[in-house]
């Protein structure tokens, strides 16, 4: 004999199983679609990367106990069409510009983010940036990281409506060398110059 409770339980069980199977299908299909659209091999052009270094003394810039901490920022040009990353299971893509550089000791390595962007629609996925400023002022675990050679890349991470998070990188890359920050006097001279320009 059937009762209402039993019937409800059966319906619920059935619904849960179906939703599970459907989710797995959607997740698999989105991976296949990405593969098919060449998402793991997307071209990008990063150019005009120009890093600038400064010396900071606040905790917000990585300084500990008001000790001098080297920071750097950069400006860059970027051209990348990320539309193939969008399919029916893409809720948003997180695009970020990274720099990878070796550390002081043997076998150590670092990777930092300079700029990132959340893209939620296919219409905004074709990126053309000119002279874009980095979002973050970057510091290292060491007090200084000047003269190290870094590889700059554009990477992405897909947040799905349901299923697996998929990430990858675009093919474009460019090498830069981190600069030396201007000395106190140079920085002061630069500031004066800017102030004079403003007055004119």
């Amino acid at each position, binding site marked *: 004999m059937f*009762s209402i*409770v039993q019937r409800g339980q059966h319906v619920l069980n059935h619904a849960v199983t179906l939703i599970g199977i459907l*989710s797995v299908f959607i997740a698999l299909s989105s991976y296949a679609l990405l593969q098919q659209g060449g998402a793991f091999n997307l071209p990008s052009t990063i150019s005009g990367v120009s890093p600038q270094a400064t010396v900071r003394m606040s*905790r*917000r810039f*990585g300084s*500990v106990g008001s000790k001098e901490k080297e920071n750097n920022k950069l400006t860059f040009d970027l051209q990348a069409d990320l539309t193939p990353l969008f399919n029916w299971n893409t*809720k*948003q893509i*997180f695009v*970020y510009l*990274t720099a990878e550089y070796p*550390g002081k*000791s043997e*076998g*150590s*390595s*670092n*990777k*930092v*983010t300079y700029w990132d962007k*959340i893209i*939620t629609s296919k219409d905004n996925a074709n990126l053309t940036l000119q002279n874009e400023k980095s979002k*973050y002022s*970057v510091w*290292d*675990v060491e007090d200084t990281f000047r003269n190290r050679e870094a590889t700059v890349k554009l*990477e*992405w*991470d897909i*947040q*799905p*409506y*349901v*299923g*697996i*998070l998929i*990430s990858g990188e675009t093919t474009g890359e460019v090498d830069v060398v981190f600069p030396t920050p201007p000395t106190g006097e140079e920085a002061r001279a630069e500031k004066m110059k800017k102030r004079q320009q403003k007055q004119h």
Partner: protein
Amino acid sequence: MNLRQQLQQLLTLLYVGTSAYMFWKGLSVVTNSSSPIVVVLSGSMEPAFHRGDVLLLWNRNERSRVGDVVVYEVNQKAIPIVHRVLREHHNDKKQLLLTKGDNNPVDDLGLYARGQNYLNKDKDIVGTVYGYFPFVGYVTILITENQYFKYGLLGLIALSSLISGEE
């Protein structure tokens, strides 16, 4: 109703409880994470993750990558935080991470413990998010934050157990 029937019911209840516990702990062993499934509690990763979304974690990776979404606990505090890795610095022995919420204007330095400048991958990271299921975790938020819902649910369970007992 006799005693045997009641004992049987108790046994079934225990069975459900222990199998759920075994599933949870088994998953913990497989994923190497103390909390392999978490529910998002804050909006700091919107629009990727909203409150109530369920995340599946994996903690057998040797190192985190920049761009990974990780769950971490500061000082083993009870509240796990879901944020994205902004920077990583590693050598052969350990890896240091700086994180940031997608929806937050600044990095997580202010959320870390006093004097802590980085997260330690081995000590602080509960797991890396690899799977996502929307909304279903909202029940747990309702239970912990809304007492009417909590007692309503308890009442409903009690009622249904009474009804099914009479058959």
